[in-house]
């Protein structure tokens, strides 16, 4: 516990130090003998979650403060075309994270031209409109992005990959602009920080590959963009099960999402529809027979900034973890959410958010005393308070 407290104190002092050092802008560190500077940015984002009916993300029925993130990053433009950066990140989300610091992203980015550049390192995965910015509370209205497409539980799985990304953007005179991102690499997953109870007998877990693309068209209609993302991945796991012995399992996934967003002046409208297709195979079909499942995920979202300090928003999100079985509370989750965002100033904000949930597909038995999903409360609520300071 003291180690956890010391981690929180260290992170907080680092970021709050940055805020105090330069309240008006990024804290720049000059590089001696050059015009260049290391730009330093950071955020502290503590939160509180309380739910009715079921535990969600944390032991939340009794209320939980295990809903916080903190990060600090350093970026330097080495030449006109070459940039490098690193972000350290820690979070506490129920049983996950526990403020263990990790390199969230780090990269070398060489932009040959605006239409072609290369990033190498650990880079955020572009999937849909908001995946690569999904843990940036200050950059959006909702506390929780629609969990059907941006599940917090899968943050470490879907947020970043270690490998290479090609990117670019081309603007035409009359057809708007086209932005592309292509990537390929692997994902390093720390099983110890993923769940309260690691799968029984798990001895090894690795991603041979993750690859994908995002293509986004900025249409000639000001503020309207539309696009699609694809991702393919493979996860291999090894188990040593009592009385059975070693078992190997392989999960192949193909994920796609179609996206549309209209953002003009103070209005934001967005909608996305997605399907995630997974195939499971194993070396022991008696234990784990081959199977195929298709998830269906979608949401619509709207927000409008009333003035400098008040920005409300709402969304409806739906998740079906198996399109061939949509009946029963465990086979679906509908989420109607409303958020009030208050910007105290340009570096500090507070959010209040409420959700009405119907269905239990996004829950886990682990957090609910092992009770199966089809026996948890069908209708339940989530209330969140989040405050974020950033520079």
């Amino acid at each position, binding site marked *: 516990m003291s180690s956890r407290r010391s981690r929180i104190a260290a992170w907080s002092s680092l970021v709050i130090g940055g805020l105090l050092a330069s309240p008006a*802008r990024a804290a720049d560190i000059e590089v001696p003998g050059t015009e260049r500077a290391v730009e330093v940015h950071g955020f502290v984002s503590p939160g509180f979650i309380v739910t009715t009916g079921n535990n969600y993300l944390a032991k939340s029925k009794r209320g939980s403060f295990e809903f916080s993130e903190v990060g600090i990053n350093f970026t330097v433009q080495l030449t006109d075309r070459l940039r490098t950066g690193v972000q350290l990140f820690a979070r506490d989300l129920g049983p996950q994270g526990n403020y263990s610091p990790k390199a969230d992203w780090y990269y070398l980015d060489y932009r040959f031209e605006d239409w072609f550049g290369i990033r190498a390192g650990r880079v955020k995965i572009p999937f849909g409109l908001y995946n690569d910015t999904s843990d940036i509370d200050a950059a959006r209205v909702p506390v929780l992005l629609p969990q059907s497409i941006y599940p917090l539980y899968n943050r470490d799985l879907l947020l970043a990959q270690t490998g290479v990304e090609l990117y670019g953007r081309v603007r035409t005179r009359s057809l708007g602009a086209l932005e592309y991102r292509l990537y390929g690499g692997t994902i390093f997953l720390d099983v110890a920080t993923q769940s309260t109870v690691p799968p029984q007998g798990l001895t090894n877990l690795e991603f041979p590959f993750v690859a994908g693309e995002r293509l986004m068209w900025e249409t000639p209609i000001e503020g309207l963009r539309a696009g699609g993302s694809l991702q393919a991945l493979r996860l291999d796991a090894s188990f040593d099960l009592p009385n059975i012995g070693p078992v190997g399992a392989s999960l192949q996934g193909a994920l796609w999402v179609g996206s549309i967003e209209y953002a003009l002046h103070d209005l934001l409208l967005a909608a996305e529809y997605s399907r995630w297709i997974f195939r499971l195979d194993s070396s022991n079909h008696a234990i784990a027979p081959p199977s195929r499942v298709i998830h269906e995920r979608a949401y619509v979202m709207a927000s409008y900034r009333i003035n400098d300090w008040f920005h409300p928003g709402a969304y409806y999100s739906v998740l079906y973890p198996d399109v061939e079985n949509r009946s029963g509370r465990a086979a679906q989750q509908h989420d109607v959410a409303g958020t009030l965002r208050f910007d105290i100033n340009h570096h500090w904000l507070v959010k209040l958010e409420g959700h009405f949930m119907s269905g239990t597909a996004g829950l886990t038995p682990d957090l609910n005393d092992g009770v199966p999903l089809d026996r948890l409360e069908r209708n339940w609520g989530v209330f969140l308070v989040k405050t974020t300071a950033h520079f």
Partner: protein
Amino acid sequence: MRAIAVGRFVLFALFALLVLVTPTHVSAEPSPAFVVIVNPQNPYLALDRSFVADAFLKKVTRWPNGDVIKPVDLPPRSRTRARFSEQVLKRSIAAVKSYWNQMIFSGRDVPPPELSTEEEVVKYVLTHAGAVGYVSGDARLGDAKIVTIR
């Protein structure tokens, strides 16, 4: 003779009418809310609004001649910045801040420098060849060049 007298009277009447309808003082053109300025070495006289918007959001990083674009902003509380943001970027300053938070914390890019005063913006534009900035219409520009936004 009578025709000449009538002609002189008509001319006098027209002159009198012109004097009456002309304001006693000619007011100066009101200053524009902002002007976009570039370094005097910059060869461009007019720019598309979408190009300027892309430059300030760093979606384009080079002038058509290959030089690096160096955009520079005023502080978030500046009224000049608010007007520039609404008219050129088509977004409020808060929306632009959200955009830059996305870029900063996902490792994509960092925002243009924010300078405290219009004098500092003019000085920056004059000392950086690829610079582009904006100031209020009545700011002292020195040798900085105004470009027309199409």
